[in-house]
């Protein structure tokens, strides 16, 4: 037998009992014999490890697990509810904003809500009318001028044109 074939058998061996041909090979091949020894040592170590007593659950373990599972589920549920609530408000706010924006776009650019437009001549422009009135009346009727009271030296007030 070749070393390669023997190695496969050794690594996969479920028990320490080997076929006669393999045993013959091990007698003649120190390398494979060494591998077998190491494998057996390792397996013996595993056997000892496997026999170690496994720690036992402490009293009330299952009750603790159920309690923690419930609180974990509650925590997840509250987190989900919080996200849902915040999400719902965010969606509502976004909807309101979008509606307002769309409403603003849809409204005419002038009107009672927007104020006067240049294209609407029937609405009186106060500044323009004032200047027109001055032009029509002329300087002779300039009683709209501002008259500033002047204080005389003797205390009586005089009107100055």
């Amino acid at each position, binding site marked *: 037998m070749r070393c390669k074939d023997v*190695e*496969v058998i050794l*690594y*996969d061996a479920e028990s*320490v009992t080997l076929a006669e041909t393999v045993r013959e090979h091990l007698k003649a091949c120190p390398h494979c014999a060494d*591998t077998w*020894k*190491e*494998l*057996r*040592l*390792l*397996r*013996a*170590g*595993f*056997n*000892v*490890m*496997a*026999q*170690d007593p*496994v*720690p*036992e*659950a*402490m009293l009330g*373990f*299952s*009750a*603790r*697990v*159920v309690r*923690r*599972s*419930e609180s*974990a*589920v509650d925590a*997840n549920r509250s987190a989900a509810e919080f996200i849902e609530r915040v999400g719902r408000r965010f969606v509502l706010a976004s909807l309101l904003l979008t509606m307002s924006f769309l409403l603003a776009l849809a409204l005419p650019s002038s009107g009672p809500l927007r104020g006067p437009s240049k294209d609407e001549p029937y609405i009186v422009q106060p500044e323009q009318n004032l200047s027109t009135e001055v032009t029509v009346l002329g300087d002779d009727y300039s009683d709209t001028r501002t008259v500033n009271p002047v204080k005389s030296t003797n205390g009586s007030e005089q009107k100055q044109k």
Partner: protein
Amino acid sequence: MEKPKAEGAQEVQWIERVQRGDPESFAPLVERHQRRVFSIIYHLIRRRDDVEDIAQEIFIKAFQAIRGYNFESSFGTWLSRIAVNHCYDYLRRLRSSRVRYFGDLSDDARLKLEARAEREGAESLDSEERAALRDYANRLMERAPADDRVILGLKELEDFSVDEIADILELNVSTVKVRLHRARKRMLLDVKKLRGGQ
């Protein structure tokens, strides 16, 4: 080993109740499977003090995932799968933050142990020899990559069959055999390399 039929039917009822939202029915499931979960954790992680905490995390994970359990595999296998995956993640996290020194057996002790283990088996060893042997295998396991450690732990320590390991790890039987072969080979190469370096 198959569970008696009545016991299985009872278990199905508990599972269905938990799936419908009755958390109290999870307690008997925990009680029934805790030994198996503790054993898997202990054999794969080897940290006695951490076993209960890790077991709690595993059962909570199972509780949260139980609605997805569809009775395709047995509940024990499904739970073992969660346990093994959890241990696997734990080992990977642990490995990234740990450097271990390999303390091998002395040559004399090794030869003596080899001879005795070969002649009489591990059962005949005295407590000191057993401790040395345990330490030897334990250190090798701790040095092994997480994949190797999990598959060797399930086979050599948990004594699962290749078929059961395939079921738990959701792999083909042939893949499990190949992985076991490679894991043993890597472990032995590690021993030889370290002995050569000493």
